[in-house]
């Protein structure tokens, strides 16, 4: 029987004592956030699934090194970012990353209008392309801050950089995103 209500720290303690099943609670609790972060960093659903699996396995293997000084989620994000960065580098060198257009994207508002649906997909594709074109460090900060809504301090801890650096990089990343998406803004404004 899995105790879903227990805190991350307690689950971690149990896993460290040899209770492997407690790790399943942690997986269920964080899999979506980790998977989405990795997916947005890689832009490939299958790769993201593989990397997310590696992230949890890696976390389990090194969970005895987790001393509880930071949140488990912060520690897990850091592992996820490292694995995603490594995979992104290998993908960049091996092949051109692509954005899935085969229905992988989930339309949040459940649009019933097919035209609206297509438009949403196009917007998401453009945003993902803009994220992919960013410097990997900047993309990580934008995703952690704007997608995951993680506070500056936690982002700084995950990336092991000062908060001021996080702010300046975030500003730079947003400027770059704005430049990438400028044609879309202009078209949108004309249409409206």
């Amino acid at each position, binding site marked *: 029987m899995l105790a879903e209500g227990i805190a991350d720290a307690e689950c971690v303690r149990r896993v460290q004592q040899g209770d492997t099943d407690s790790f399943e609670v942690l*997986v269920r609790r964080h899999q979506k956030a980790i998977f989405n972060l990795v997916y947005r960093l890689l832009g490939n659903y299958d790769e993201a699934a593989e990397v997310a*699996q590696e992230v949890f396995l890696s976390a*389990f293997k090194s969970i005895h090194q987790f001393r509880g000084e930071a949140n488990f989620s912060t520690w897990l994000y850091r592992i996820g970012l490292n694995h995603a960065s490594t995979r992104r580098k290998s993908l960049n060198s091996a092949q051109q990353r692509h954005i899935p257009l085969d229905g992988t994207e989930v*339309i949040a508002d459940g649009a019933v209008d097919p035209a609206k649906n297509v438009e949403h997909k196009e917007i998401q594709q453009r945003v993902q392309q803009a994220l992919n074109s960013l410097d990997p460090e900047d993309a990580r900060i934008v995703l952690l801050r704007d997608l995951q*809504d993680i506070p500056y301090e936690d982002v700084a801890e995950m990336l092991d950089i000062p908060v001021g650096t996080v702010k300046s990089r975030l500003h730079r990343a947003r400027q770059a995103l704005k430049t990438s998406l400028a044609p879309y803004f202009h078209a949108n404004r004309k249409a409206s």
Partner: protein
Amino acid sequence: MNCEAIQRYLSDFLDKNLDVERAQEIKDHLTACSLCSEEMASLAECQRLVSGLPAVEPPAGFTNRVMAEVREAANPPRLWERLFLPLRIKIPLQATAVVLIAVLAAYIYQKEPLQREAVLTLQPESSFKKQEETHNLAPSAAQGRTAPSKSKQVAEETKARTQEFKDSAQLKEPQSPPKAEEQNKGIAGSQPDAPATPRAQNQVRSPATLSPTPLQEKSSAATEAASPRLEQSSPPVGVQAKGALAPVPQPEKENASKDAVAAGKSLLSPEAQERSAPSSLDALRSGTVVGVALPADHELAIRLKEPVRDDKATGDRLAPGLAQAERRSLTSQEEAKNLDQARERATQTGQSQTVWVTIARNQYELFKKELADLANIEAESSTPDRHDDAVAKSSNQLRIKVTILPPLASGNPVPSQPSSR
């Protein structure tokens, strides 16, 4: 603040990360400045688009897959489980692998004799050491059986010639040892490679100088059997290849070796002779071998002409040989002497003699011409493999194996033209 300074704070303003005064200042500027206001709208739109990216669900069964790997990592399968499970897949695979390996092993084993031949041709150093050691120890082991003074003299002479040849071999190139060494090693139980040399040396020590271990007892016995032959069969010239150790009972061996030496015959087994000189004439099987049996570039079989008898009272005198006459083809006067002495022995004993000589590559025809003055060249052959050897080619020297056949009795037809095999 001007527009540039305002735009530096827009990102923080968007995140509501500024103090109240600064935030108010920026807000006032944005209402007045359309450029900064547009910039702010673009940034806000970017943030909205990124944060508006839909959440993607992990693939179905993601948790189960992760936990399966986690449990496997927590309890790694034992060795036998990893090797044999699942049985229905791994057992057939492993059985197939075993069959393939067996077939491959059988195939390699069939090829092994050729490879062993190739390896054995690359061990001159250990062979020379062993041969030298054997000659050194032979007198002590055989005392009382033969005339000591003659044995000692022969052994010393042989040792000197062995050393001389060894030095020249080191200066030239690694050359193969006599095939008779292979026979010696096979009997003594030593390995054919160079690191086994100390063991081989131990095996030929005299029983009087060692308290034999079981292994040494065996080798000492072999040495004892070999010593009389080695000492008696050493002819006055060249490095002899007569040290073959045939595993026969002691008295028979002694008699056999004495008889063989008296007849000037090689003690090499027929198989060993065949291996050492695969294309030699049948007459060579009972002949004496002078020089070290190395792979030859060319092989010549010559039939000596009838000796010139100019003085009946003093016995037969042979015509001047290669050493007495000023011969230009041979690079070594020593080898010329060997050739002449072998020729004399062939004439005196009526047995064939084999000599290895080295000449410059461009002197081959001249050498043949010089031989033709002394004898009829009955057969000539070259070794194609030797010619393919890059080292042999680069040395610019030819290794010639000369088989000297005794002169035929008068009236026997002697072919005058060399026949190429």
